[in-house]
């Protein structure tokens, strides 16, 4: 699939934002006043920033509100509801902490739950697609959630939790990559089922049109194997290994923590790029490309 910047930013940043909100909702760290304000500011900046960039992906941003209507059937719609729900609940909860120094715990738990739900909803937009075997798998929501909580822990300064979650994230990501590589073949969809042609070796001949079209641009993106391996290594080191190492091996300092966070964000962006770029849509079969 075409790795659109808007979607990479959207899923990565909002994921982190909501990840942080999970921890803040659970009172980790138990902040109030201006410190709380700072934490919430970061969380909202990330979450809202991500959501905004998703709007830029739309052909008609001015109609974005219509996306709230189909919560019964559409994960994108549910995501919109969840996100705005969480943001309003957490606004009240945060206001309590900042201005009244009051912590309305149930609200916080509710918000944390909602934040997790939002991340799930986002991931389901991709996981639901039978047309993209690499995504169409339980590991997609798990991966999104792991990214969110690991990043959240990191941002929330929960070093111990962060180290643990990062290690889990790293191992899981490795497995997802290797398993993802064979999912297209595992899915029963082939050029033969796509065309139902029989009688010999089957291959796509001429493209319908000699030029590109929306589908070839949107769904067909080829990443070289070697290129991918390099990027996976970079993504993993930046998102997991480096931050975990800093937290585990070096004495704590805000500067170092900052580096760990930035490294994680950078790595996550790389991994998200791969998430899209490596995903193959079955329509590619019709075009003799994947």
């Amino acid at each position, binding site marked *: 699939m075409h790795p659109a910047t808007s979607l990479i930013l959207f899923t990565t940043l909002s994921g982190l934002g909501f990840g942080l909100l999970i921890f803040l909702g659970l009172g980790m760290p138990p902040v109030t006043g201006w410190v709380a304000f700072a934490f919430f500011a970061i969380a909202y900046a990330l979450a809202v920033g991500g959501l905004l960039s998703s709007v830029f992906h739309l052909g008609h941003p001015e109609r974005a509100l219509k996306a709230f209507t189909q919560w*019964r059937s559409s994960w994108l719609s549910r995501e919109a509801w969840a996100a705005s729900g969480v943001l309003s609940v957490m606004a009240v909860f945060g206001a309590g902490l900042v201005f009244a120094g009051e912590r309305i715990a149930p609200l916080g738990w509710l918000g944390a739950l909602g934040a997790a739900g939002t991340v799930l909803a986002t991931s389901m937009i991709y996981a639901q697609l039978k047309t993209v075997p690499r995504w169409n798998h339980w590991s997609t929501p798990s991966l999104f959630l792991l990214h969110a909580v690991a990043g959240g822990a990191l941002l929330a300064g929960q070093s111990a939790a962060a180290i643990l979650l990062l290690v889990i994230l790293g191992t899981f990501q490795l497995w997802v990559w290797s398993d993802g590589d064979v999912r297209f073949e595992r899915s029963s969809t082939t050029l033969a089922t796509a065309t139902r042609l029989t009688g010999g070796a089957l*291959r796509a001949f001429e493209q319908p*049109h*000699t*030029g590109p079209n929306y589908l070839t641009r949107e769904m067909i993106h080829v990443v070289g194997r070697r290129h991918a391996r390099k990027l996976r290594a970079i993504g993993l080191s930046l998102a997991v290994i480096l931050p975990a190492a800093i937290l585990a091996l070096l004495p704590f300092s805000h500067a170092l923590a900052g580096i760990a966070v930035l490294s994680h964000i950078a790595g996550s962006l790389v991994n998200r790029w791969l998430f899209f770029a490596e995903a193959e849509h079955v329509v590619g079969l019709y075009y003799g490309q994947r």
Partner: protein
Amino acid sequence: MHSQPDLDTSPRVSDEIRRTTCYMCACRCGINVHMKKGEIAYIEGNRDHPVNKGVLCGKGAAGIMQHTAPSRLRAPLKRVGPRGSGAFEEITWDEALETATGWLKPLRESDPKRFAFFTGRDQSQSFTGYWAQAFGTPNFAAHGGFCSVNMAAGGIYTMGGAFWEFGEPDWDHTKLFLLFGVAEDHSSNPIKIGLGKLKARGAKVIGINPIRSGYNAVADDWYGITPGTDGLFILSLVHCLLEAGKIDLDYLARYTNAPCLVNMDESGNEFGLILKDDDGRDLVWDANENRPRCFDKPDVKPDLAATWRHAGVTHKPVFHLIAERYLAEEYAPETVASTVGIPAPRIRALAAELADVAFNQAIEIKQPWTDFRGQTHETMVGRPVSMHAMRGISAHANGFQTCRALHLLQILLGAVETPGSFRFKPPYPKPPEAHPKPHADARAGEPLGGPHLGYPLGPEHLCIEDDGTPQRIDKAYTWENPMSAHGLMHMVISNAAAGDPYKIDTLMLYMANMAWNSSMNTAQTMAMLTAKDENGEYKIPHIIYSDSYSSEMVAYADLILPDTTYLERHDCISLLDRPISDAERAADAIRWPVVEPDRDVRAFQSVLCDLGHRLGLPGFVAPGGGPAFADYAGYITNHERRPGVGPLSGWRLAEDGSETDGRGLPNSEQIDRYIENGGFWTAEIPDNAQFYKPWNQAYQNWSVDIGLVDAPAPYTFNLYSEPLRRFQLAAEGKGPRQPPEHLRDRILTELDPLPIWRPTGTDADDGFPVHALTQRPMAMYHSWGTQNAWLRQIHGANPLYVPTKIWKAHGFSDGDWAQVTSPHGEITVPVAHMAALNENTVWTWNAIGKRKGAWALDPDAPEATKGFLLNHLIHELLPPKGDGLRWSNSDPVTGQAAWFDLKVKIKKVSAPRESKPALPTIHSPVPKAPETVARKTDA
């Protein structure tokens, strides 16, 4: 839970429908042009139209994008930069027409042949020819000489009709259909509709073609023949059928010259000619009276076997010669298999299939009819085997004889003009004798003695001076190509630039992209168009060109006469020319302006009427001295070619002033009648005249009634072609007109009165082992579809398709490029793999490649950067043979350009920035094209 918006499922479709004729190609389908607010909104097929019955092809439905193309010229242009630069300035029509008159008038008064006028894709040749005849130049022809004259000539000399647009299979009855060398053809929609009918009836379709795409892809059987070898393949089928006696003896005896008696006296001047009676009519052996009698005597029973010895001279029936020749071993499947690339058993199997369908599955229509001998037949017996062929046969240097071989095969099976077989479309059948003879006798200030083009019956009809020099600039009708019935447009520019046979002053071209895809040897053609003599003058001093669009050719003219689009002008698709008739009816049609031009352009034919008047051409000046025709519509309505016969046959005026069909006086309301009728006119052929047309009294009389001919002229098919034999006699030293020495042998071998096959092109061992072909894309018309925003998305670039064997041998993979070399040139192009392809053949789509700067495309358009032409590899002359002569790359009988004799070698190379040769960008005479298109008429 579900809910859905309300939807208006009956929106207004249009304010008005204007019915005219499509011109996105030469098929001439009827179209309904839907108008909204006076603008063209949508184009669909006209269900009532005889050609397309409502359907459209991919091009036709995209006509709206042709009409709105940014490449459309806006006003007359005068060249301001050097020729070829594309630098022009827009001028007024008055200046344009005065300039043209200034160039042409002196030529007409001094030496008319110094003006040459050649036309391309137009369909007004009976008009442009009439104009050129009035001017008095011998140098007129349309593009048929490089297109498919082999099909026309091969067919007309053999059976007075032809493939191409002159006949069609009996789609409703045929059970076995053989398609030779066709990718698309002019009858684009009729062939598709026909194939649909065959499939629906479960009739069998066989494709004989090196490439299995399009029609050949849906064929039930495919014979991936080696290019250029069809003649041998066909004659091998003939061999098998003769060997088995599976031939229609009755048909041959009655309707062909198989029983005609041939003079066998080698020493005599009549050697090889058919025995004639005193008024020069063919004699056959009459089995009833056991004596030679005229073939058309009412009670004659022509005998196919009897020979007659008289006054010491043996006369053999043609059929003897046929049997003797084709039963020979050289035509046995086992002998030809390796050459044609088809195993002997498959050839024998096909012969068996032909025989089975023709004779075991014969059909009979209960319809009495009377033949030209006066015999009445209770039924019409049919051999349901039909064939069609086009440029895969004709675009080879052996195409004329191969085409004759194919007709021989059809005729042996009794499969021409019988139910279920191949049928002629009016004005055909029309034997060579009934066609005019060529005229080339130019006289200062005088019109030409007769029409330029025709069908020579012997050396006496050649267009040469007494010393043998050609009278025409294209050297048509000379010993080099005696039967060049459509002229040789592909030789005009090189001959004119070389001043051979003489210099000309002004070349006028119409609707032909001669500086690009329409020429062989493209790069050098551009050089010839810009070549200067020792005093720095252009070797072709003046070039006038009419185009509607910013084509490559525009840049090479000095004066551009911008034409309208097909939706803005009157046109006439006439029975005098290339009508829209089918086998069951005569039909003609018009175009009319469904919208007025929105710019300063004029219909070229109307411009010719104006020019004709300014030049004072006979027929174009009214008695009062004014113009005879205000515009082309005026000509269409009022011109009479013969008394009572005009460009259009519908709604003419009877003596009593009532409207009548066929013959009649001009009718000022004729065009309105056509418009009311959907833009066309038809005359149904009576049931008893539907088949056996050349011999059918009812048909002969009907064709006189509607004015196709002035008197019945039944004839028999020329399996043995006497005109060819007459040229051979000359080559044998007999007769007053003698060919030059270096051509005697060639004429003797090539102009054989019975079909032969000769290998063409360079031999594989010259180092160019691979055949290279082009095909028409169904969704693109030559160069002119490219400016069409919809069509160019379908065909915006063209790879060279390479068969599996060569693909593997060179280790090609997707995205690779290859250098392709012919004895003449070299190109570097992208390649793609194709398995359903003859293993020694590569091919590409025709005319997709474009010159940078043309057609209002960005210079970096894929057509220019990835697209390419094979034409750079094809030369109008063959490589030197060491005999000190340069033989032309064309058929020795007709001069047809041999596009498909091209042989190449191919080599893998690293991908260049763009395909080569990459010629410099030409300056565009039209403004830059828009960034996006999203057109809705009423929005």
